[in-house]
């Protein structure tokens, strides 16, 4: 059961990252339907990422038995995910002025793009890990 949940969450998080990437591409600031989809999916991300982190944490703490590429992908995903969410969170609060909001949006964007790489790394590591366990 836990294996299924782990797999489902990993697929969900990677899928969400892909959709967030797709909706953030294109010139100019996000708006209209694209922004709406981005915001809706980011809600799913906020929900799924901590669950994914908690469920995968025991395995990722086992530094000896897992392949490094999977661990690197996981921790990079958690770190970049944290940065993207925290920048979004601060932007939602009446704290940052326009200039700071522009900076936060930039950091959010860069962290988001890095998280795509992290997710890709995680997927590659996961595939290798699965092949290794099948052998």
């Amino acid at each position: 059961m836990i294996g299924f949940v782990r797999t489902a969450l990993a697929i969900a998080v990677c899928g969400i990252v892909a959709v967030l990437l797709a909706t953030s591409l294109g010139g100019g600031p996000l708006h209209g339907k694209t922004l709406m989809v981005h915001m809706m999916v980011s809600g799913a991300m906020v929900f799924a990422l901590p669950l994914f982190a908690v469920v995968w944490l025991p395995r990722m703490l086992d530094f000896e038995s897992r392949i490094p590429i999977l661990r690197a992908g996981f921790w990079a995903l958690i770190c970049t995910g944290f940065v993207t969410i925290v920048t979004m969170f601060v932007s939602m609060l009446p704290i940052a002025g326009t200039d700071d909001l522009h900076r936060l949006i930039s950091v959010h964007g860069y962290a988001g793009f890095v998280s795509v790489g992290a997710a890709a790394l995680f997927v590659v590591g996961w595939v290798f890990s699965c092949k290794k366990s099948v052998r």
Partner: protein
Amino acid sequence: MLVLNNLCHVRLGWLLWAAFACCETCLMAGSTIAADSTRFAHSDSESRYVHWIDLYDTSNRKITPASTLPYSPQNTCGRCHDYEAISHGWHFDAFAAESKQGRPSEPWVWTDARTGTQLPLSYREQDASRNSVFHPAKVALSPWQMTSQFGARFPGGSFGEAAKTSRTLEPGAETVIEPLTEDVPLSPRWAFTGSLEVDCMVCHASPGDYDFETRRSQISDENFAWAPTAAMHLASIDGKASRIKDDADADDDKTIVAMPKVSYDEGRFAPDGKVFFDLVRQPDNNSCFQCHSSRQVSDGKIEARWMHDEDVHLRAGMMCVDCHRNGIEHETVRGYQGQSHPSGVSVETLSCSGCHLGSESSMSGASSLDVAARAGRLGSPRPQHAGLPPIHFERLACTACHSGPAPRDEAIRMMTSLAHSLGASDHRTGAELPQIQGSVFVKLDDGRIYPQRVMWPAFWGTIEGDSIQPRSPADVYDWTRKSLRVRKDFIEEIANDKAKFDEKVLEALSAIENESGAERAVYVAAGQVHGKVKSESGVESLAVLATSFSESEMVAWPTAHNVRPAGWSLGVGGCVECHSEGGKVFSSTVTPLGPSPNISQPIAMASLQGIDVNQRLLWNQLFAGRTNFKVMVAVSLAVLLAVLLAGLGSAATILTTRRSTRLEKRS
């Protein structure tokens, strides 16, 4: 004799026009030429130049207490100031051929309560999509008629001057303006009324020195050339040019006797014959308010003035001219974002965003050395807009949140100086035409939402091809007088009763068809086109035509005042102030109004903005759970932080263990 003098003046105008024709093009193209002109002396001091001056009359003769002609601003002020350049400036070019529009502005609205007419007119070039604002010439309205109708709300110049009008009719001239040559003959009345020259004192007289009410009265009496003299109380004017018939002989003794008489006040003249003009370089706010005031009408009444605050900038001690500046060429800065000034000078920091946020180039850091591009002009504070996603600046103009009356569930009736002659002493009820409404949140070409004033044209016209050609309001009145039989108010006497409206309008349409020879006449009101339809049995009745015509569409123009303070701006109460079912920017409505009993359906702002209803519903739902979402995000971040700490702790433990193991092995 006086008539002859006036006629001479008209002919002199022709000659003047010929003399200036060459340089006019240059002035139009680059008004900086005027500013650089060395033809005129200047004081170059911050102090006021005391104007003890000689006055010159419309025949360009020096005025003495015994003079019998009115003083001419062109001949008096034009001796030391570049009148020709000034007369091409913003305001004065409102009555000029091919004048530029820039951002859409309030049209002149020709109203006739007897025929239910509210016809938007403009000499300015209109965008191709703005088909419901008509060029006066295309409605067969002559410059004289326009001057007579709107002269009191116009500082003079351009077509207000007979000379400028006549050039359009000069055969063979290069600058002949086609629509005027054939459709609108030169009015014979110019010979009696004289020209409505640019009256410099309208704006530059010291507060309280210029009598606008007297000016209105003189223009109403068709004493165009006498208005500047009367408004300054330099002389008493006796007589009305309006009493002289169109076909009167100018040389006839009766005509000469009927012309207005001037009696100068000797007390105004110094021993050397000079007159003191108490004037200011920067016009006072009160001068601007004469043509730029508005009042709100709700529940059928004009709202009391004490309930409203003045513009926050004026409250802070600023003056209209602090932002709306101009040089000698009088190209007054309108102050909207993206305005391109004819002088070529950047006026970006005289707009809301330019003044408070700096020009776009300074914001991007491209011209950080250019102090003039920075924010903070006149000490303007830099707004924080804390927590407001910058996308709002892409989609909304500053004015959408900060200007105009506080938004309500539906747009309210507005009265403006230009449309309702506010400032004139009158018994207004708020129901007078034209039926202008505001604030309506509509997009402009830049894709941003602006608060705008709107109106729906109401006029009588004929269908020509796939468009409607409005007919001259004067002709319409003559043609429909017997069929409509309105004594005073079309709305009160006809439009409030559906059966009567159908019957009378049907008769009036037949009358127009008979008189004009047109195949099909229509009455446009409230966005609907009323025309005759024939039943199978051959009975004619009035119906709203199913075909849509762009000439009946809403006319809108953005407004920027009064600016509300930050605490009264939209969104101060949070996102849901707009992103909710009741968000006024999207959900408030405006109902097409017009002199018609057929009530139109209210239109939501979101619909005018082209926003999909379902999409807006989704947005609202997204924002409805925003507080809970913030809590969820906080929890999510806490969990992720815990996971990261656990990872760090684990990594630290492993590193410590490895180090201990290494140390143990060594020992």
